[in-house]
C-alpha cells in the first residue's frame, strides 16, 4: 500500500485514537489485554482502510471496526489473569465501607458494566458515545426497536447488579 495512504491513515487514527482506547477500556481488564486489543483493532482498521470511501466519517467507521474486532475477531489471550484482576476489584469494592460518593458509585458502575456480556457492552459503549438508536441498530445489525428494548433491559440489569 502506498506511503501516502499510510500517512493519511495514521494521521486520522492518531487524531481519533481515543475511540480505540475506549473500546479497549470496556472489553479488557488489564493493561496487557488493553494493548493487545488496541493493536488488533489498529491492524483491522488499517486492513479495511483501502475500502474506506469517506462517505462516512472516519470516526463513525472506526466505531464499527473497533467494536467488530472486540466482539467478533479478537481472541483473548490472558483469560485467567483477566478473571483474577476482576475478582480483586470486586472484592475491594465489597470490603470497603459503603461510601456514597460519586467516585464510589462510578467504581461500582464500571465494575457492573464489565460483568455485562459482549453485546450488552457494545450497546452501552454506543450509548455512552451519544449514538442514537438508528446508529446503534445499524452498527449491530438489529432493528431500532430491538436496540431500544435491549438497552432498557441492560439498564435494568445494571440496576440489579448494583443493588442485588
Amino acid at each position, binding site marked *: 500500500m502506498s506511503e501516502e495512504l*499510510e500517512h493519511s491513515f*495514521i494521521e486520522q487514527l492518531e487524531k481519533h*485514537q481515543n475511540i480505540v482506547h475506549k473500546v479497549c477500556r470496556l472489553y479488557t481488564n488489564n493493561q496487557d489485554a488493553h494493548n493487545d486489543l488496541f493493536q488488533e483493532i489498529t491492524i483491522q482498521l488499517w486492513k*479495511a482502510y483501502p475500502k474506506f470511501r469517506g462517505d462516512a466519517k472516519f470516526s463513525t467507521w472506526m466505531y464499527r471496526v473497533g467494536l467488530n474486532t472486540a466482539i467478533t475477531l479478537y481472541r483473548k489471550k490472558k483469560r485467567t489473569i483477566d478473571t483474577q484482576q476482576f475478582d480483586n476489584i470486586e472484592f475491594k469494592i465489597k470490603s470497603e465501607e459503603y461510601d456514597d460518593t460519586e467516585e464510589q458509585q462510578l467504581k461500582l458502575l464500571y465494575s457492573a458494566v464489565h460483568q455485562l456480556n*459482549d453485546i*450488552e457492552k457494545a450497546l452501552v459503549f454506543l450509548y455512552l458515545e451519544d449514538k442514537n438508536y438508528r446508529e446503534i441498530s445499524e452498527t*449491530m*445489525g438489529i432493528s431500532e426497536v430491538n436496540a431500544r*428494548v*435491549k438497552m432498557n433491559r441492560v439498564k435494568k440489569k445494571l440496576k440489579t447488579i448494583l443493588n442485588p
Partner: protein
Amino acid sequence: MDELDLLKKDWKNSESNFPKLSYNDFYGMIHKKSSSIVKWIFIISLLEFVLWLLISFAFKDNEGMKRFETYDADMVLIPLAVVGYIILAYFFYLFYRNYRNISVTDNAKILMENILKTRRTVKNYVAFNLIYLAVSVVIVLFIQFEQDEVFIAQIQQAAANGELIKYYVIIILTTMAFLAIAIGILLLFYWLVYGILLRRLNSNYKELKKLEL
C-alpha cells in the same frame, strides 16, 4: 439521575487519562501481524483441504491400492475419483467466495454470519469427505469380495467350515470399527479446535439472534 448518565459524564471526562500514542507508535503497529480468528479459520481451513488431498494421495500410493488397480473396477473407481475432485473444487470455490465476503466494516450480525458461513463450508466439506470415505470403503469391500484372490480363498475356506456368516460379520464389524475410530478422532479434533476458536463468536451471535425473537 440514571446510572448510565452518571457513567456517561465520567466517560467523557476520562478521555484525558488515556496515553497519547504517537505517529511512530501507530506506524509500528500497522506493520505487525493480525491474530484475529478469521486469520486462524483461514489457516485451519486451508490445512483441512491440504490434509484431505494428502490422504487421497497417500491412499493412491499404498500397496493395497496398487493391488486394487489390477482389478477390473475402473468403471467404479474412476467416476468415484472424478466426483471427489469436482466436489473438492466446488467446496474450495465456495470457501474462497465466502472468505472474501468477510468484511470488518459490515454490521456485527452480518460479519458474524459471514464468518460462520465460511466455517460451515469447510465443515460441510469434511462431512462430505467422511461420507465419501465410508461409501468408498463399502464399495472397495464389495469389489474385494468379488475379485480379490485372498478374499475369495478366505470366503471359500469359511464356507467349507460352515462359518460364512461369521466371516462376513467379522469383516463388516472390523470395517465399521475402523470407520468409527477415524470419524471419532476427526470429530474430537473439530470439537476442540473450533470449540475454542468460535466459542465467543457463537455465544455473541446467539445473543444477537435472541434479540430478534
